[in-house]
């Protein structure tokens, strides 16, 4: 018995070795390198091997870094909230109201825009929301407004709209999967026991869908905080987020230790926020088991 398990484990390790080693060399080694760099000193055109925490002190005391970091967190949180709130009814509709044979068509339609050129999509949002953009020119043309709307112009709002569009499928799919897993008999039981439709949704459907909602929140929140393109194109580089700051330190200013400290700090904050978020919501995850 034990020998059989060993043979199986050996085969498993042999199979997983190539992709695992690849990820070790191309991902883990570079991540460890920037972790090391973040504790070293910046010299002229090179990194000096002197241990220091001054990079972190600089990162944590610099008011610009603090502003940009807080802005990134706020934008990501806002994008996550908007994306998940907008996505939930769609996932609910596809899971509960679309006929089973039409579901994959809906999912396919939802994912297609995600696979089309990211840069061009972001740029087109600039066209849609801009000063002479689609929204402003049609509203002015129809005589509804006299002056172009300014609240959607090249600012945080337009960044949020663009990112909410870009990450829509990431929010819809996990919620949809969680909703699909719900035993429909439970909902009938809720109704039979005299709960209203709204209360059944609130007390049965929503708690059971929470694992999917939590997954959606993390899957949207984590990558958006590192988004580089949208602030660059939509914000015109005037409202940088943390990714733009990392890039400037690493390349334009060639201060790799400081850039590394920024990257490590950003990753640590994202990880911390995610863990805290999961801990706050852990009771919803227990529902499953």
């Amino acid at each position, binding site marked *: 018995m034990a020998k059989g398990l060993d043979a199986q*484990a050996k*085969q*498993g*390790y042999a*199979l*997983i070795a*190539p*992709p*695992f080693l*690849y*990820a070790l060399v*191309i*991902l*883990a*080694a*570079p*991540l460890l*390198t*920037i972790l090391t760099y973040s504790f070293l000193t910046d010299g002229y055109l090179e*990194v000096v091997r002197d241990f220091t925490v001054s990079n972190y002190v600089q990162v944590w005391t610099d008011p610009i870094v603090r502003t940009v970091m807080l802005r990134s967190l706020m934008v990501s949180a806002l994008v996550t909230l908007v994306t998940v709130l*907008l996505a939930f*009814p*769609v996932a609910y*509709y596809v899971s509960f*109201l679309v006929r*089973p*044979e039409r*579901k*994959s068509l809906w999912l*396919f*339609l*939802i*994912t*297609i*825009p995600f*696979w*089309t*050129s*990211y*840069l061009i*999509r972001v*740029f*087109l949002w600039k066209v*849609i929301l801009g000063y*002479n953009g689609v929204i402003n*020119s*049609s509203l002015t043309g129809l005589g509804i407004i006299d002056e172009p709307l300014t609240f959607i112009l090249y600012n945080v709002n337009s960044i949020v709209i663009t990112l909410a*569009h870009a990450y829509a499928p990431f929010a819809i799919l996990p919620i949809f999967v969680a909703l699909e897993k719900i035993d429909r008999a439970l909902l009938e039981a809720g109704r039979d026991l005299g709960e209203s439709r709204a209360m059944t949704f609130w007390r049965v459907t929503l708690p059971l869908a929470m694992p999917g909602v939590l997954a959606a929140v993390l899957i949207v929140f*984590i*990558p958006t*905080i*590192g988004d*580089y*393109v949208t602030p660059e194109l939509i914000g015109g580089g005037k409202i940088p987020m943390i*990714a733009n700051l990392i890039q400037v330190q*690493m*390349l334009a200013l060639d201060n790799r230790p400081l*850039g*590394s400290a920024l*990257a490590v700090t950003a990753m640590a904050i994202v990880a911390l926020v995610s863990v805290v978020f999961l801990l706050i919501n852990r009771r919803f995850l227990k529902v499953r088991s």
Partner: protein
Amino acid sequence: MKGQGRGLQAYALLYLLFLYAPIILLPLFAFNSGTIIAFPLQGFTTNWFAQMWANATLRTALTNSLTIAVSASILATCLGVFAARASTRFEFPGKGGMMGFILLPMVLPEIIVAMSLLVVLLGAGVQLSILTVILGHVLICMPYAIAILSTAFSSLDKSLEEAAYDLGETKWSAFRLVTLPLVMPGIVSSLLISFTISLDEFIIAFFLAGNQPTLPTYIFSQLRFPKQIPMIMALGTVLVALSILLLALGEYFRRRGNARMGGNPTGGFL
């Protein structure tokens, strides 16, 4: 129930409109003779497509992107087959952690992947080129390949392989003759998805390509010149059409795979 369904349906259709808004605008501007990207539209023209066709830098970028996407999708799918088979067929200590680590690039911000890889490559004195982009793209395509391939491998009936062993096939020949044909639709689907991801990937290509242009980095460089934008819209139209074609093909193979496994091809429960 009916009223609630109507409301939700209307919302879902509006949401689809929101999702498709940029894609609907793209061909409008690509065929519009006006040089400024704004309404009202001027006249009809195919000049921007002709201009695109004649552009030499764009051709280099296209060749580079295709080279990168073909190599990255093949490598990512090969590595994905190993991981998917390991995770669906075998139990071993630490499997969850190892698989989680391999799938990590799916949620890691790309800027972190690109920057850390760039720092290491520069530190090691590696010349930045198409090759370094391929290294990065394989890493980010692999999780998607694994997700698709795992579905294909997990719906595989283990007894088919065992029957092949009983009939005297070796492990390798059973894999080649029985397993591989059954998961082939998954492999094709994984190749297509990885190809699409790599073709559209910007951040890693932007930082790791050195001075070699790829399609997305070329597009990014041109977006700051208003004169070039109509041509970029034409290019975008072609790219979108191509992506939709590839995805439809990928979806077709995935469904055929499901049907071949005896699953419900219409995508219902079970």
